[in-house]
């Protein structure tokens, strides 16, 4: 067990400016505790996250990636997260079809008021990724 505990996964989070990004701020200002494994990238909307960004992150050394958006129906741009949801489903499907770890790609709908939920999501993703161990895609020199 001790050996596994030493593995600190790197998680890249693409957080939407209006909801999940604000929730991350709220988690910070309310001093909610969550692991420092997540590296947030602020994006204007979850729909601006081209699946290529997620793949690039996974190939460049991330052990997991997370997209955070507004709850379906609450998108600041009306329908961005619905489209993000389709693209995300597509990427997961592609990963599954190719026998890659689709469960290293996460998406969470977290509203601006859900600071504790954001902290909880990060705790959960970090714990799960620790269980999975280092990603075979991460920093693979031959890919």
């Amino acid at each position, binding site marked *: 067990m001790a050996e596994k505990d030493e593995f600190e996964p790197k998680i890249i989070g693409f957080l939407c400016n209006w909801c999940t990004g604000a929730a991350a701020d709220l988690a910070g200002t309310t001093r909610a505790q969550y692991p420092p494994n997540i590296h947030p990238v602020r994006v204007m909307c979850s729909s601006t996250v081209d699946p290529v960004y997620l793949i690039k992150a996974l190939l460049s050394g991330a052990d997991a990636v997370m997209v955070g958006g507004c709850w379906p129906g609450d998108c600041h741009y009306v329908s961005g997260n619905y489209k993000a949801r389709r693209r995300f489903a597509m990427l997961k499907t592609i990963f599954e*079809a190719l026998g890659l770890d689709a469960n290293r790609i996460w998406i969470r709908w977290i509203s601006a008021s859900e600071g504790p939920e954001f902290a909880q999501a990060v705790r959960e993703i970090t714990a799960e990724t620790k269980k999975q161990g280092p990603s075979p895609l991460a920093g693979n020199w031959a890919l």
Partner: protein
Amino acid sequence: MAKSATLPLKDGQIRKTVNSFLQDLLSKKVVEAILVPVAHPAGNNIMQSLVIDPEYLEQADVFAPVLPVISARIVSAMTRLTPVSKKTAVVMRPCEMRALIELVKLKQASLDNLLLIGIDCPGAYSVEDYQQFAAESSSDDFVKALPKRKEDPKLRAGCQICQYPVPLTADLIIGIFGTDPGKGLLLLADTEKGEQALEELGLTTETDGEMAKQREAAVEKLLAGMKEKREKFFEQAKKEVGGVDNLATTFAPCIECHNCRTVCPLCYCRECFFDSPTFELEADKYLGMAEKRGAMRMPADTLLFHLGRMTHMGASCVGCGACEEACPNNIPLLKIFQLIGDNVQKLFDYTPGRSLEDELPPTAYREDELQWIGEK
């Protein structure tokens, strides 16, 4: 309800019969131009050609088993800026037509003034294999041998697992499946435009004729057989290319020439993301990446390119197999793209090129779908 006509065989030859029908289209002013595969003088080459003068149709060869360029690309290049002003017929294989429908939806082509003529497609060889084939055989031999043919390992990878060897959106279909070419060639109108063309040609038509019914039964059987074949193929493909190690092996010979993208009828972007300045890095960035990994395969981002392309056009992949044909190092791209394409298309219950009405999956959404996404 479909109207059809039977073209009597000219000198017992399918090619001559088709060509004379195409010549009639021009001489009877049903259309003023035809885009069609034509045998070219040098070597045994077939290329799509835009024909105005009926005389040049003597050399047309629509069933020649070769598919050098996916003609949807040609139609897109012709009609992207403005639709054709004169009535033009295009003779396409089913996969080409499906790609064209996708391009129209992507606003890269226009069907205005076009008469879509589809063929029942018996498959095609690579350009190289075709040249050998054509040296001693003809398209007529190829089509006539069809009822007896079981497997033809020389067919292009895309043709081996073709999902729809029959046109889905043609105005007119030149039907060969389930029919006896000795009795003549079936010309089937699938739209009002097609019916009108038959009328203008002055052909005797029948509704639900014997030949059309025979074809329908044969097509149904063929599609069911293909479905089964594809399922087995995907099972096998997943074993062969699935997983990080297999993917690394599969893409190891990739030299990043991007030929697969160049010939892909669906990769329409004027400027590809993978050619953008995002991928122009300073030397130190490369050194940094190599340092982190210990070593780094160059050119970089091979798997990223292929996975990226899959996410960008996988939903619309028609499985023409042009990518695999164009790969200088024989990477089984068709296998991979059809594997993921099939899964993505099933996810959205989408058949690329089936209809102009079906929305492109990445641009549409339903509020009540995919509820499992984002759940804890």
